[in-house]
């Protein structure tokens, strides 16, 4: 008995999708393996996390004590330290050569990359996850252990994990697209590093890396909530330490809208830049 023939037109898209997914999964795996090949380097970087966590633990311990309040900005001391642990892990986990698109544009390597059988942005996206995941997890492991040690409590619950994880995935995707957008400016400006620098500083202040947005003056808090920086740092960290089902939908919606807007900008910029691409030499 032979199997009934399936019309090719109906089978191919699913097959192609699986093949495409497998292709980027391989990119992810290779990138992950490269990161894991140098564990010492990864752990050495966490020394800085130790210093930062120690300083912020001292700062918040003192502030809570002097204010005589159980919560500040709606967070207990333990939640505050875990909040810092998560925001620091997000920022510090970005690979140093996150701006390699910038380099490829300036050196002309991008022309070769575009000729390869993959979508360039998806390739970089898969690569980013492979690089960032182990960096994020090692940084968070150290930062969270220190937050627990310094506060004597675990600031994240099971529901926090459930709500924080999707927010984190969206946050890292938004960060990737924003960094990509900045890198693509290399088509027009000589050096894009200063733009990334400014972006990082905005994440630090307006993103709520050092101070949860609830502790901002009212006007600044409103502005910070509208801007995309809080979607990268504040939203996932807040969801992890202070899971609130009622607020979850609103914050995730904010992230999804930010992601969509940034994705459109990045794609438009990429397509536009692609048309401007000139390849010289062989």
């Amino acid at each position, binding site marked *: 008995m032979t199997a009934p023939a399936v019309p090719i037109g109906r089978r191919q898209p699913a097959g192609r999708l699986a093949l495409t997914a497998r292709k980027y999964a391989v990119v992810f795996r290779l990138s992950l393996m490269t990161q894991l090949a140098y564990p010492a380097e990864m752990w050495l970087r966490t020394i*800085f996390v130790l*210093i930062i966590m120690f300083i912020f633990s*001292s700062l918040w311990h*003192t*502030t809570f004590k002097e*204010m005589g309040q159980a919560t500040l900005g709606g967070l207990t001391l333990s939640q505050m330290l875990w909040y810092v642990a998560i925001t620091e892990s997000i920022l510090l986990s970005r690979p140093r050569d996150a701006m390699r698109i910038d380099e490829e544009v300036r050196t002309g390597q991008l022309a070769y990359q575009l000729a390869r059988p993959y979508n360039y942005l998806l390739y970089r996206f898969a690569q980013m996850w492979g690089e960032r995941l182990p960096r994020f997890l090692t940084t968070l492991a150290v930062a969270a252990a220190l937050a627990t040690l310094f506060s004597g409590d675990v600031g994240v619950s099971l529901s926090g994990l459930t709500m924080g994880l999707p927010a984190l995935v969206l946050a890292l995707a938004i960060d990737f697209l924003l960094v990509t957008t900045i890198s693509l400016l290399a088509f027009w400006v000589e050096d894009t590093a200063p733009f990334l620098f400014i972006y990082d*500083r905005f994440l630090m*202040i307006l993103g709520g890396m050092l*101070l949860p947005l609830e*502790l901002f003056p009212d006007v600044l808090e409103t502005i910070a909530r509208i801007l995309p920086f809080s979607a990268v740092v504040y939203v996932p960290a807040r969801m992890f330490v202070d899971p609130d089902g009622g607020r979850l939908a609103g914050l995730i919606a904010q992230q999804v809208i930010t992601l969509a807007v940034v994705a459109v900008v990045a794609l438009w910029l990429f397509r536009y830049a692609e048309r401007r691409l000139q390849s010289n030499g062989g």
Partner: protein
Amino acid sequence: MRLPSTARFLGQLLWFNLRAAMAYRVGFITSVGFMVINDAMWIIFWSLFFSRFPVVRGWTLEDVVTLWAVAATGYGVAWGFFGNVRPEGARVIVSGRMDYYLSLPRNVLLHFIGGAISVASFGDILFGLGVFAAVVRPDAAQLGLFIVLSLCAAVILISFGLMVVSLAFWAGNTEGLGLQISNALITFSTYPLDLFSTSVKVMLFTIIPAGFATYVPVTIIREFDPFRFLIVVMFTAALAALATTVFYTGLRRYESGSLVATQG
């Protein structure tokens, strides 16, 4: 006889470094501008923090701004003019590029530490002086005290950096380790020490001298105390002497790279 000649050499070295930094105007302005923005962001953070919690362990926003001003000016002078005391300086030793400094009839130590510049660090100097003048609004005496103490901080940071870089004479490429140690000093220099426990404070007055570099100077600027001032000056001199000894002891272990190169 030798002291005036060494002082003249140091003066010329600093002047040459400043001119080298400004050779590429646009690059210079951009680097300096971004460093000013970077430092200013920290002041914004502290402004936000103190707008919510006005006093922390007796520290106000003005005190933290003074702390940042001393740290930024100190680092600006140290790393801006004496770029080889940054962790990257270890590369010069490891790759055998000390030959260049050894072959010339000038003070090897001064020539080595002043053999590189960090353009962005000039932004620290601009920020430090600017923010101190704008926020603290000092009188002439306070400004003079600020400049002297910032220069003491610079010498402490140069000496500490030199000792860290000198580790390369014994341990090979210590750039990564040096980076971590430098990060620790930078970070601790910019937070009020009163936040920390006594044992940590002891560490910050000995192993990582952030206490003498920025904390004590801030207390002196806040309220002048000749005894503390003398302590800072004496500590600065002692650390400089120790760093010089460590460097020359390490230099005896230096192995030439037989490298033929010109110094840019």
